[in-house]
């Protein structure tokens, strides 16, 4: 089971003077159960890329395989694909439309043509997964707070029981706590439900904390594809394409340049604290 992108090209304004590559010869394979961080500055092609993965956009050339099947072949059920590869857009709360939270979450499973019982079962489960208390289920989604709306919208995709969940900047505009809560729930879906996750984010700190593999896009091309520690080692190249490594990476690199023997792969506060205290012989004193 996997998603495979095979030499994907996507051209905007094909055949006109404005012709431009949005994706250029992108190939990769996402194995089951991975947590992928997808990064790149605005306009790097990452949003275009994720829309190819669930068949919302069609590549100009190249192929996408889901579980070995070419999703562009004649007769392939793209609608079914979309429920298996769930895509949560940026500011997903902008897609809410029903009179109450519960009915809105039911929209996805209803489109899947399931029985009434099954639809409700899935909606309940999804709302529980995103941690939205039952007292809100009957309310109008438009009366909820920003963070709660966001959860309802994510539940709306989860209710289709996707095997892969792609989220485009799910924490944009949320405050720090709201951000952590959403990310923790996504992480839980990964560890507990074994869901494959693709997380698009601008925050290197978040990516470093959750992802076990990073894809870096720049100008429509895939420039890195490796575990976080390996990618962040190239922090200088990342800067050249308008990105940056987590702050901690810089602290560690600076200390290393001064001759301090720290592991260059440290990317989180926790790792750095442990390593530095270890050097100072204070390991275990508190951490």
């Amino acid at each position, binding site marked *: 089971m996997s998603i495979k992108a095979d030499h994907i090209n996507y051209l905007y*304004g094909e055949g006109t003077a*404005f012709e431009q590559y949005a994706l250029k010869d992108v190939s990769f394979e996402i194995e089951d159960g991975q947590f992928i961080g997808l990064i790149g500055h605005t306009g790097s092609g990452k949003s275009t890329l994720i*829309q190819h993965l*669930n068949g*919302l956009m069609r590549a100009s050339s190249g192929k996408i395989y889901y579980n070995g099947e070419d999703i562009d072949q004649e007769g392939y059920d793209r*609608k079914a694909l*979309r*429920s298996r590869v*769930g*895509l*949560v*857009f940026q500011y*997903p709360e*902008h*897609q*809410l*439309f029903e009179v109450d939270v519960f009915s809105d979450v039911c*929209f*996805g499973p209803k*489109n*899947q043509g399931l029985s009434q019982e099954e639809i409700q079962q899935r909606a309940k489960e999804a709302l529980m997964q995103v941690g939205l208390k039952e007292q809100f289920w009957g309310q109008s989604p*438009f009366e909820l707070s920003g963070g709660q709306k966001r959860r309802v919208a994510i539940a*709306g*995709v989860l209710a*289709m029981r996707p095997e892969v969940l792609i989220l485009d900047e799910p924490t944009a505009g949320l405050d720090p706590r709201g951000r952590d809560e959403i990310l923790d729930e996504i992480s839980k879906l990964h560890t507990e439900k074994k869901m494959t996750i693709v997380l698009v984010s601008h925050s290197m700190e978040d990516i470093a904390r959750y992802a076990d593999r990073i894809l870096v896009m720049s100008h429509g091309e895939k420039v890195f594809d490796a575990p976080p520690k390996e990618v962040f080692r190239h922090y200088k190249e990342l800067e050249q394409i308008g990105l940056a490594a987590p702050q901690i990476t810089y602290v560690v690199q600076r200390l290393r340049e001064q001759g301090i023997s720290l592991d260059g792969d440290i990317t989180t506060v926790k790792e750095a604290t442990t390593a530095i205290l270890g050097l100072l012989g204070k390991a275990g004193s508190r951490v």
Partner: protein
Amino acid sequence: MREITLGQYYPVDSVLHRLDPRTKLFGTMVFIVSLFVADSLAAYGVATVFLVLAIRLSKVPFSFMVRGLKAILFLLLISVSFNLFLTPGTEVFRIGFLKVTWEGLRLAGFMALRLIYLVIGSSVMTLTTTPNELTDGLERSLGFLKHVGVPVHEISMMMSIALRFIPILVEETDKIMKAQMARGADFESGNLLQKAKSMVPLLVPLFISAFRRATDLAMAMEARCYHGGAGRTKMKPLRYAGRDYVTYLVYVLYLAGMICL
């Protein structure tokens, strides 16, 4: 989707581009009126010269001018055939029961010319005038209506805001549509009723978004001291230049010619 342009402004520098929008609005009006006055070959000849001159002066490629014709092709065919087949008079030939007369040929010909010139004539204006200039021109030209209680300033402000937000809302529609498709929505299949029903998940969020934007914008405008047209100055006030007066003179001569012919 993002490249959608309203109106069809063609950005080059020409005499016509530099004319005051009011002059162009008035000119278009004069031209349209003249087309309805014209009733002889000679008159159409003058109109043709006038139009060709305007097109040459605008520096806009002719192919852009005729694009607008596609939209009225159907209308054109219908009005031409009506005139062609239903005008009584001296028969020229007949196809089955349909009789074609001299009078019919003449009327149909004029009708076709009239419609084509009308579309090309207005295209000359929209291709050489930015939507903003157009709104400004309308506000100033219709300023006299203020005195009879028509909120001219407000209407032109609304037009200009609409121009700014239509591309944004078009893009947003595309986004919401995709988001709902990702939840299995189907906007294509089904009968008319089903299709109408399937629009709800698109229209409700779109309406809410437009409403939110309107509230935000109203607040932003207030914060920037907007309080209607009274006491407002203009960054780009419309001022007639010499070329505008010359153009008006041309209009007078043209109109006089058309009426005489």
